């Protein structure tokens, strides 16, 4: 199999993940998009491991590590999202603007707000 196929697949999945991180409003959805990105990375790693065919299987082992860390990250991340939801009552990232530096009314934001 040509190496190009896994490469393109991984690149596309990664880019989709980037899009999701930037464009989704729900915090959980953002975490899901991060998972997509990590999966793209995993495909890349496994493909290169198959291409190198080394004895250490570095690519596949690293994939294992990535999966493990991703699981840990999702656990902690979702715990944080739950905590935020408990404190703020919302998991919509557009509502979480406490760090807003602008001194004018809180209703303003850089991008036009869509109607709720």
């Amino acid at each position, binding site marked *: 199999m040509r190496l190009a196929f896994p490469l393109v697949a991984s690149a596309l999945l990664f880019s989709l993940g980037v899009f999701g991180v*930037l464009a989704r409003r729900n915090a959980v959805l953002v975490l899901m998009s991060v998972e997509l990105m990590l999966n793209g990375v995993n495909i890349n790693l496994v493909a290169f491991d198959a291409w190198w065919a080394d004895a250490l299987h570095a690519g596949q082992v690293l994939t294992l590590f990535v999966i493990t860390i991703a699981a840990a990250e999702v656990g902690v991340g979702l715990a944080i999202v739950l905590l935020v939801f408990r404190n703020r009552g919302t998991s919509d990232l557009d509502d*979480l603007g*406490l760090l807003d530096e*602008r001194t004018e009314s809180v209703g303003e*934001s850089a991008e036009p707000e869509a109607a709720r």
Partner: protein
Amino acid sequence: MIVVPLIVLIPFASAFIGLAVGWNRLAARRVAVVGAGIALGLAVYAAVAVWAGGPSVEIWGTVPTGWIPITVATRADGLGVTVGVMVTFVAFAVQVYSTAYMRPEPRYGSYAALVSLFTSAMLLVVFADDLVVLLVGWEVMGICSALLIGQHWERPEARAAAVKAFVVTRLGDVGMLAGILVLADLTGSFQISALQESAVASTTLTVGLVLLLCGVVGKSAQVPLHVWLPDAMAGPTPVSALIHAATMVAAGVFLVARLDSVFLLSPGALAVLAVVAATTMVLAALAALAQDDYKRVLAWSTSSQLAYMLGALAVGGYTAGLLHLLSHAAFKALLFLGAGVIAHAIGTTMLSGMGGLRRSMPLTYLMSTLGLAALMGLPPLGGFFSKESVLAAAEEAALHAGPLPPWAAWLVLLAGLFTVLVTAAYATRAWLLAFRGPTRSVSATAHDPPPPMRFALVMLAVPTVLLAALAFMPSVVVAMLNPGIGVPAEPAGPSISAGTAALSLALVGVGALSALAEWQRLGGRDPAVSLGPVGPLLADGFGVDRLYEAAIVRPVTALSRLVVAGDRDVVHAYVRGTGSAVRALGRVPQAAQAGRVQSYVTAGLAFVVVLALAGAGASWW
């Protein structure tokens, strides 16, 4: 003589000491009266010294200006010491009077200090030998006068009157400053002695003198800058007596008298002065006829009498004018203090509120009668002699050659005679309405004043009567009023022309009797009612105030509003606009700090991508 600066400095010191101890009323009173008393004593001493030893000029220092230096110089001569004695005399009387009259006044300390400061400034004008030093005294008098008019600044009419007095006199002073500069340029020195020695007749001299007359017109309340004096009656009565009867308004006359030898060189300036004097004489006397406020009657009367003095100086009657200055100071101050006594007793100065005061205030009645008789010019009081000498001087200049064109002298003479008639009328009217007739309920509680005020009244009544004696001592008068150094010719002594005197006495009779007859015909009511529709016009001062209001005040106020709007909407708009612009500019980068996680991540990823693309592009290149 060292005495001369001391005469100026003692009241000055008493002003500041009085201000320092002003919280303690007893101390303030003592400081004020003692200061005025010492000044009076020193003035008498200086007068005796000059009458005995002759005039002198002393230079105490020079102030370099880059052009003509200002010499801090004083002169002590007959004119100066005589007027100095007059000023300190009246000031002392007023300070004594004020200790009782101003008893309920909360700001007595500042009042007494301002009166002392004013006295000091007037004495500086009297004894200055340098025009700029004189101007300093002139201006300090102006500000003291404005502040004293506004003594009761809780009342809007007092505040308005103070501002009006200051602005109108300042307007005249602008012309005066220009005149001083022209005269100094002409002679190369600010000193009066230099001016008297080296002045020659020329158009420039006339121009300078006419400009100087602007200040005189403002300070002495002549047409067209007379409008401040009637309103200045909003100030306390002792202030009116001192400043607006005897001293400050007389400063204008004094200045013309001081520079009399120079004025005599300029028929043009004298003609201007004559026209101004004649107009004011008649206009002010007619306005006094219809006033309801006794103090306003006296104020208009002051304008009219000052015009007499200026008219006398215009026709070359130097001694006549100054004699009238002295006698007017005495009887007008007396009349004002009498008005103050009435106000103190019954709480109003409106003639419509007075009546029959002769029964309840006998001393005041006697004093005021004396004063009003002197005003009318009844013999044997001083007022008669001084007024007659003025008219005689005018007649002399009209019939024979004088220092000014004959038509101007005729103008002064005829205006003077007509004014005699009207003066008698308004003086009689005031006398009848205030003191004769039935007692009104308000007047029943009136009583003669406490001792300090009585003392002051009597003090001023003495010269009112005794100044008449001077008429019979012309050489003494000449010696008294000798302007001293730098005067080429001996001024003539006062004289009375029999024909004019008889005519004027007849006019006095006509005026007084017509007022009396009207009063009796109306059954004790105001004879001014008979003037009909002319009455309100006269009471309004011929609408000059309204004219100034429309022609000057409103445009200036509109212009100032325009300037304020320009400052606020144009200049400040730029300032505010800078602030708004900066804030708007700041909002742009602020958008990057919106606190949204995703915007931060977006920015970060965008930059990473850009870097990667740049790197790829660079390597491809």
